[in-house]
């Protein structure tokens, strides 16, 4: 280490002199460079987090700034955890999360597997498949409301054409039974390409020579798939699940544009519900406690998951 510094100072005597003139050590310069980032992080991430935790123990309302703030202890948390409406919201979120992940992983992996076969024009297909992911969620939400239109919507028309049912006999967004699936379909349409790209990276990381060895070892294609492809892509798949899981737990824009949480509150996911509590009902203290609960659960689940992921990786 000291040798390195020696050669460095020999190579750049001018730089050395400069830092001596200013009286700054390397470490001090490093701090100067990273301090703006740290300050911004503290200001926009860490401080609001701590402030939220503080607010969650009060009955503060942001639309009544002059009212005296009362410390209420854990009462906000009690009320949230015993509120049956919130559990319905949680169920809606779970339904959305589980089905989008299952569908996106299955379809995404299948697409990646097919695209990875060497055929003519697979680059072009990759580009086409990836397109939905590049659109704005608000735009996607908006135009799917047209596709879902019972009278003129393309989605209803295609479903009607395939199944023989009358296209205007059902409404994906308006129907209580169908609405939860309407958001699953759109999210899957939009984000499956993302899962496909990650799976493709995983598939491309497996060298051909390993399949050649397996072929010489008389492993069938089926066995190669289950004993080589799947185990070697698994860390990538798990990473995709983590990304999609975190993203969809905080899903907001797409669903607000598409259903607005309706009909009723059937598709009101937690983040939409939270926004309503905080910025429509202005129950700031209550909403803060809600946010803290969500944060802790995402953080907890993600940490456990990352541990599992590392275990799979090091296997």
């Amino acid at each position: 280490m000291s040798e390195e510094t020696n050669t460095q100072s020999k190579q750049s005597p001018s730089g050395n002199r400069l830092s001596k003139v200013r009286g700054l050590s390397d470490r001090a310069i490093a701090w100067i460079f990273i301090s703006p980032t740290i300050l911004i992080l503290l200001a926009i991430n860490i401080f609001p987090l701590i402030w939220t935790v503080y607010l969650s123990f009060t009955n503060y309302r942001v639309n009544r700034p002059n009212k005296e703030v009362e410390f209420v202890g854990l009462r906000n948390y009690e009320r949230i955890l015993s509120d049956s409406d919130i559990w319905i919201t949680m169920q809606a979120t779970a339904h959305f999360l589980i089905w989008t992940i299952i569908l996106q992983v299955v379809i995404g992996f299948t697409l990646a597997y097919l695209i990875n076969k060497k055929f003519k024009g697979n680059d072009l297909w990759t580009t086409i498949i990836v397109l939905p992911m590049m659109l704005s969620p608000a735009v996607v939400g908006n135009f799917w409301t047209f596709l879902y239109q019972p009278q003129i919507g393309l989605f209803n028309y295609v479903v009607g054409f395939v199944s023989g049912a009358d296209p205007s006999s059902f409404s994906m967004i308006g129907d209580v039974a169908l609405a939860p699936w309407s958001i699953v379909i759109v999210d899957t349409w939009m984000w499956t390409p993302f899962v496909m790209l990650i799976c493709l990276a995983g598939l491309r990381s497996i060298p051909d020579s390993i399949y050649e060895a397996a072929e010489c070892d008389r492993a069938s294609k089926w066995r190669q798939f289950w004993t080589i492809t799947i185990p070697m892509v698994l860390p990538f798949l798990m990473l995709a699940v983590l990304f999609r899981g975190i993203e969809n737990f905080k899903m907001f824009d797409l669903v607000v544009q598409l259903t607005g949480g309706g009909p009723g509150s059937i598709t009101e996911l937690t983040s939409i519900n939270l926004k309503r509590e905080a910025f429509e009902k202005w129950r700031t203290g209550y909403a803060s406690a809600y946010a803290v609960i969500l944060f802790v659960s995402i953080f907890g689940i993600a940490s456990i998951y990352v541990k599992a992921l590392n275990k799979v990786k090091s296997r």
Partner: protein
Amino acid sequence: MSEVILDQVSKSFSDTAALDKVSMIIPDESFVVLLGPSGAGKTTTLRMVSGLDKPDSGSIVIEGVTVTDHTPAQRNVAMVFQQYSLYPHLTVRENLEFPLKSPLLNTAKKDIGEKVSAVAELLQISHKLDNKVTELSGGEMQRVSIGRALVRTPNIFLMDEPLSSLDAKLRADLRIELKRIQSDSGATLLYVTHDQIEAMTMATHVGVLDKGKLVQFGPPREIYENPVSIYAASRLGQPRINVLPADIFGSAPGGAKFIGLRPEQIVQGRGESATVRRVEHLGDQTRLHLLFNKHEIITVTDAHTELKSGDELRIQPKDAFFFDDQGIRLI
């Protein structure tokens, strides 16, 4: 174990011909070594026999069955890859078990365990059986790769420079071990190398490849003592055969352009005078670098020679090889 026949096998990759009408019979229970520099078509030949690549023309017969269109699994061949190609997510044991677990073999669990430990013992990797293969050294990985082939009883073993990444001692040990395994079990083996010591010590037959053509095929002694060309003669023998203008020692047969002299074809102490330029003591032998008529000759002499640089030494050719202007052997 079985006989393998290649008949007029050709293969091109885009515009370059990797193999050009290669025909060869790999006899049952033989140890065939393919020699040649990189690009000569050694590995391509191996991949043709394995079924990983299909020939453009020609046919391949294993044990009397034409297998040209068969998959590697149908051919029942075991291959050792140069770049190991182990299953990185599996342990050493799981790697060795992998071929035995093929439904085509239907091996009993007990037999799998026994075979794996026997092979691990043989290759000195028993203590590593439960390690992940990615934790092994290069030499250990290569031994696992050899082991993965040895647990099976295939029609033919195909090995692509399996010893090239091992250290000298292990290489010498495994050379003897592989030869012993082959002669004990009567396995047929097709082996690619550019190490002539491996070729001389292990092979029952050597095939010399040059730019996709099989130029000579036969027992190693025959190729050493009776090479068809300068190219084939240069593949075997250390120090290499000396190639000089044909008339350097006087008369030469008609059409001869070059004379080829191996160390044992140079008689010392008689004939014409040469100057010693360098003496290399290798322990068991001593190499002499001679200057003769402005040409350098490398030969071997007594290990305890008194000769030193600058001395004069008389030399004379004996039973020399003569080659024409294309390098083809005349006499």
